[in-house]
């Protein structure tokens, strides 16, 4: 598989790399049309885009949850630490250190918060004491979860459920977390709280993050690098700070232009960047 050597820097040290993948649902619905991206070790990379752009599909093709939804990676390859992972089961991937936090949190509603967290350690061959340590670590990052540890997850607040879902992933002792729309439906200060913790986990526990978000500006504040996905294609990529300052991004995602929401296809700057695609 040849990796396009377009943007230097990030791609120099491939840790997680996605090379020109195509994803089809139900054998007919083409959703990703050649997506390439990479995440460096220890990085936080944001994957941005509007509804239906294919963000979740991209994450699921890495974690291989795609197959359970009748989706298939039909072209391209996915590598993690130099090994191809696109044919592995989610169980294999979690063991290798890649775990996904699904969009919409998906806590186990009838289990308590603590039981939810403990299921996260299912794939580990760890002693009770080691699991206990991980639990303490998670409670340390998410003190709210400790307060609610005996509550059924289904009856906790949205923010607590999001924390529970992230904490549960951390219990697997991952190297990389694929985090799908953590901000969904949460109040701004909870979103900040969660992103702060993500940043903290990244800095102190060396967990890399690939973060799918619609909430562009918040995501770019916490990420190092960003990709913008539209209609199953990457239409723009760059350092997070550059993207945040980019006129097109501002225009499109913050609605700063007078004409309202636009597609990137209509934006002039973008056409020049598009050359490396397809």
């Amino acid at each position, binding site marked *: 598989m040849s990796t396009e050597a377009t943007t230097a820097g990030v791609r120099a040290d491939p840790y997680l790399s996605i090379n020109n993948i195509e994803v089809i649902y139900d054998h007919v619905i083409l959703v990703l049309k050649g997506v390439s991206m990479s995440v460096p070790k220890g990085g936080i990379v944001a994957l941005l885009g509007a509804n239906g752009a294919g963000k979740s599909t991209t994450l699921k093709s890495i*974690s291989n*949850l795609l197959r*359970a939804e*009748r989706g298939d990676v039909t072209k391209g390859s996915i590598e993690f630490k130099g090994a191809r992972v696109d044919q592995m*089961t*989610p*169980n294999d*991937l*979690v*063991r290798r250190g890649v*775990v*996904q*936090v*699904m969009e919409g949190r*998906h*806590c*186990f*509603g*009838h*289990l308590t918060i603590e*039981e*939810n967290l*403990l*299921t*996260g350690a*299912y*794939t580990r061959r760890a002693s009770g004491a080691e699991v206990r340590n991980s639990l303490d670590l998670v409670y340390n990052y998410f003190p709210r979860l400790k307060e609610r540890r005996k509550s*059924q997850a*289904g*009856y906790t607040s*949205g923010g607590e459920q999001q924390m529970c879902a992230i904490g*549960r*992933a951390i219990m*697997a002792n991952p190297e990389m977390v694929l985090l799908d729309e953590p901000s969904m*439906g949460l109040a701004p200060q909870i979103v900040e709280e969660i992103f702060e913790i993500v940043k903290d986990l990244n800095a102190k526990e060396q967990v890399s993050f690939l973060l799918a978000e619609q909430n562009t500006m918040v995501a770019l504040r916490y990420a190092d690098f960003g990709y913008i996905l539209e209609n199953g294609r990457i239409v723009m990529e760059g350092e997070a700070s550059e993207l945040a300052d980019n006129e097109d991004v501002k225009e499109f995602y913050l609605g700063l232009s007078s004409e309202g929401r636009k597609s990137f296809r209509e934006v002039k700057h973008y056409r020049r960047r598009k050359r490396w695609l397809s």
Partner: protein
Amino acid sequence: MQFFLEVLIGGLLSGVLYALVALGFVLIFKASGVFNFAQGAMVFFAALTFVGFTEVLPGWTGLAEGGAVVFWLAFVLALVSMVVLGIATEKIVLRPLVNQPPITLFMATIGLSYLVEGIAQGIWGANVRGLELGIEDVPIEYMMEHHNILISSFDLFAAALAGVLVGSLALFFQYTKVGRALRAVADDHQAALSIGIPLQHIWAIVWGVAGFVALVAGLIWGARNGVQFALTFTALKALPVLILGGFTSVPGAIVGGLIIGASEKLAEVYVGPFVGGGIESWFPYVLALLFLLVRPEGLFGERHIDRV
């Protein structure tokens, strides 16, 4: 009063068995969303396989007929057969149907129940057999003397056995890593997959446990009524139990089983004479039907926790 108590206790004791079979349904339904119509056939298969082994083992091995060694060997072999049957069902019948609508899976288990009955009778023959567990079906003297109540020691033994089994299963679900994973899968397949719980292993375990439960129920019923095809229908009494208790609730299966067991016996004795008797066989279904009108989710049916 004595008589009432006698009937009630007898009913409760047989209700424990209904609970046990219902538990097999609940396990599979919770973990894989499959309504396993073949559970009754599995009970029959288990009992017949056990009896079959007790018959052939002395010939194969030269062990004494009716001895403890033959009993336990047959038990282990029947258990292995049940686990293999359960796992094979999951792999061969249900896995290819993953992502299909529930009704398709349900139809598959109806087909499976005929297949399982056929295989069992094909291997071991179709004649009715007796099954000897070595527990005598006599009234307990103490209760006779002091309270003038007839309680069968066999019923009591069966209820205790089923009770221990139900209790240990409950502990297993509540406190072990695998039990927790089972509950997690029951709650949300996708999320379970996302944290690396291998669904197939879990389903195999559930089918294996359901096979074990079927074996215990089959042995007890077989010992009381003989091992015969009708076992399949007795086991289907679990259906009204499920309607009463809720399809996803372990405590519901237990309480539902007790209610059905007690009420069908009481109805037979107190209402039966007015309608010509024999109501024991259909009374539970009527009760379930009435119950459906009042509380469709069952006594303990889990309500969806809807909070977004």
